[in-house]
């Protein structure tokens, strides 16, 4: 096991390096200039722009810039935002709590919907419940989040005037009121993301369970006289969860990456909105840091999924 882990971690290093090279080159070759706005502003002399470029090291050849980025990253220096003129890690840390809270809870909501609904629907295939659940799931993942987000705003904020649609950090209240306000403003983005994700996962859980429930060993378990509940929970779900775990684990980096569209609609100051504003402003160090951390998390969660397999299915062994 330890051997396997070590091997996987060693393999991760070249993949991360490869990813960082590709990201860096793509960003360096992309058109646009973080100081584009300075060029069009007649009040700003061109030498100011030249000085800015030089002070941020933008005039060096690309391989030198990459090496200096890499050595800084290894020392824990994530770079320096062109636009905010502060270190990138500060920017990301500021956004992390909100992202984890909103996106994290939405993933929990999604799981809380998908697991029971998917399993129940699969144990009663083609029943009314299954049909309804299937239809709703289909509708749920067919509607993009920007659409459901706007529909929610239209219904709950504008028509009913129940919920605010602008997410505010630093609510000036304490105790229960703070929690209530926080709930009111988070519920819409959480539900938009949670329902979308839940709908996708429901269909997946259902088909995974359906695959297992027809197998002979399930019939054997039933014929032993076990209750239907025990059969489902102990024998079916545990085996059916293997593909679901992969899917959920691979989705976890998204909790860090945030949800660009939903964050933009509800003005949630998460990492997704940081990424999109940085892309629009050509703030390369921030784009680089966010995407690179994202890549590292994808690799990490892949590893985690593989380890979880071994726990869920003892037949899989890494020794």
């Amino acid at each position, binding site marked *: 096991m330890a051997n396997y882990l070590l091997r996987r971690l060693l393999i991760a290093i070249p993949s991360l390096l490869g990813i960082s090279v590709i990201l860096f080159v793509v960003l360096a070759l992309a058109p646009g200039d973080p100081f584009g706005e300075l060029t069009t502003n007649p009040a700003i002399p061109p030498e100011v722009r030249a000085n800015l470029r030089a002070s941020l090291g933008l005039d060096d050849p690309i391989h030198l810039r990459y090496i200096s980025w890499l050595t800084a990253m290894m020392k824990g220096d994530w770079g320096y935002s062109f636009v905010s003129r502060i270190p990138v890690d500060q920017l990301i840390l500021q956004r992390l709590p909100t992202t984890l809270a909103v996106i994290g809870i939405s993933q929990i909501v999604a799981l809380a919907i998908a697991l029971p609904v998917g399993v129940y629907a699969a144990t009663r295939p083609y029943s009314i419940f299954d049909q309804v659940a299937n239809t709703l799931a289909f509708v749920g993942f067919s509607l993009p989040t920007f659409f459901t987000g706007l529909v929610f705003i239209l219904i709950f904020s504008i028509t009913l005037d129940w919920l605010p649609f602008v997410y505010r950090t630093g609510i000036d209240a304490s105790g229960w009121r703070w929690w209530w306000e926080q709930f009111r403003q988070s519920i819409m983005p959480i539900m938009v993301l949670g329902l979308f994700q839940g709908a996708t996962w429901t269909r997946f859980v259902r088909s995974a369970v359906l695959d297992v429930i027809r197998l002979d060993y399930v019939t054997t378990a039933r014929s032993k006289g076990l209750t239907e509940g025990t059969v489902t929970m102990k024998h079916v779900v545990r085996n059916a969860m293997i593909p679901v775990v992969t899917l959920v684990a691979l989705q976890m980096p998204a909790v860090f990456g945030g949800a660009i569209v939903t964050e933009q609609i509800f003005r949630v*100051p998460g990492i997704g909105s940081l990424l999109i504003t940085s892309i629009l402003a050509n703030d390369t160090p921030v784009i680089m840091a966010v995407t690179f951390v994202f890549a590292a998390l994808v690799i990490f969660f892949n590893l985690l999924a593989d380890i979880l397999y071994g726990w869920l299915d003892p037949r899989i062994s890494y020794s």
Partner: protein
Amino acid sequence: MHEDRLRHLLDLIRGGVLSRRDALRRLAGLGLTAPMATQVMALAGVSPAAAQAPGAEPVRRGGGGPLRLLYWQAPTLLNPHFATGATNQDASRIFYEPLAGWAADGTLLPVLAAEIPSIENGGLAPDGRSVTWKIKPGVRWHDGVALTADDLVFNWDYARNPATAAVTAGSYRDVTVVKVDDLTVRVEFRQPTPFWAETFVGSRGLIVPKHLFERYVGAASRDAPANLRPVGTGAYRFVSFAPGDVLHASLNPDYHLPTRPFFDTLEVKGGGDATSAARAVLQTADYDFAWNLAVEDDILKRLEAAGRGRVVFIEGGDIELLHLNPTDPNREVEGERSHASTTHPALSDPAVRQAIGLLVDRDALEQFIYGRGGPATGNVLNNPPRFRPPQPSRAFSVERANEVLEAAGWRRGPDGIRAKDGVRLRFVLQTSVNAPRQRTQALIKAAALRAGIDVEVKAVAATVFFSSDVANPDTYTKFYADLQMFTTVMTQADPQRFMNQFVSWEMASRANRWQGRNIYRWRSPEYDRLFREAEGELDPIRRADLFLRMNALVLADGYVIPLVGRPRVNAHANALRPVLSAWDNTLWLLSHWGREGG
């Protein structure tokens, strides 16, 4: 214009022969609009030049509760010397102040200055080589340190240092700032400078404290803790800031105006999009004020119908212009199309330009496309009022256009498109992707077809069209099309920088990497001469007259066709009383904002 008669009138007013009211009437008789006549009198020293502080004087400070502002672009930094973009300038403006700001009518309002310098109070040197500013006594930074002339001298030193890479460098590098005494500085110019209100004034003139920044000049400037925790002189003090998200501030109990500000706390929330920002103010009233609503007027009207807020349009000098290319966009000279040495085969004929001018229905643009967000105009230079020429005729007539073209020898071919000597009237009209612009293109195309001109419309993504990418042929500065259309912004209340975009030496070309400001490719020796004259003309009336003549010259040639003005659009809650100006930042006078009944 009528300079001699003007002068004679002004002498009569000065001598007391003529009352102000009579003078206004007689100036109107000379073709001057009332605001312009007032301004002419102001400039001639007949009436006070400085703007009056708007609104009634409040009795006490504070008590207004929270003020919540919504910006769909979030501020990312709080140092005015690094502030690119309106959002960052606005955010810095909450904490930092200039010596004077630009009011809505294009006049100066003293903020940190004790008074606006003039020849009469000895602030302006008669030779135009220096301006002396007196600082208001008793102003303190938020940490209690007193504001002195040293702070101003420091800002000059800080901003003009190339290693600081300040975006305000342009306002400081060509002047010298000298401390006269603790509360007086003199800004010295290299040559006689009629427009002296640049350094320490308006959005690029905000003053930062020397005692917090002096260790961070040059390359170290980015390490200053005060870059993110501003300590200024403004009406509100810094509380917290999350770049790209939200900014909190609270009332400054030590503000230099004893009865201001009104609001106790301030929140500036950023992000999202313009339409939902308008919604949050006009429809759900979650916020008190929304900035820069680039939203179609129809939608704004629908949101306003909820009755919780209103949209305000502040007129400035920004204008949507239709450019007719004087050069040939289809012929390459020295690796460059639209080269200055070429002439356009069809548009060089004045009759064709006149016809196109007649085919643009500006009033329809205002009525059906831009609404309140685009008042029709026939002038290039529209504001401030003291530089506003009389409105030329904006006739729209397809028949006249047909007559003009017919008379000039452009005959219709079998397909209905006019041609002469093998040159067909077929033009490409390019602009950025933007709903009102595409509707304008369609309107022009339809009208042109009725006069036998075939217009092909082309829309380029805004990020490409307005980029400075030298390799891309579709940028607006390249102008590789017969016609193009976009908004030209006027950043200052003085027209000199605005009018400098028509001078021949600013022509955009390959040599200056298409960064020259004259994108029109139009040139006129007469215009160049007038501009040079205005640059050194110290007499305000003669100078205003020069700018008006430049405007007339641009219009007379017909290569540049004004379409609609583009006022600034903001929305606020019904009860809020914001003080806004198109010549300065949106939050230029936040200290004076109030609420009705409060």
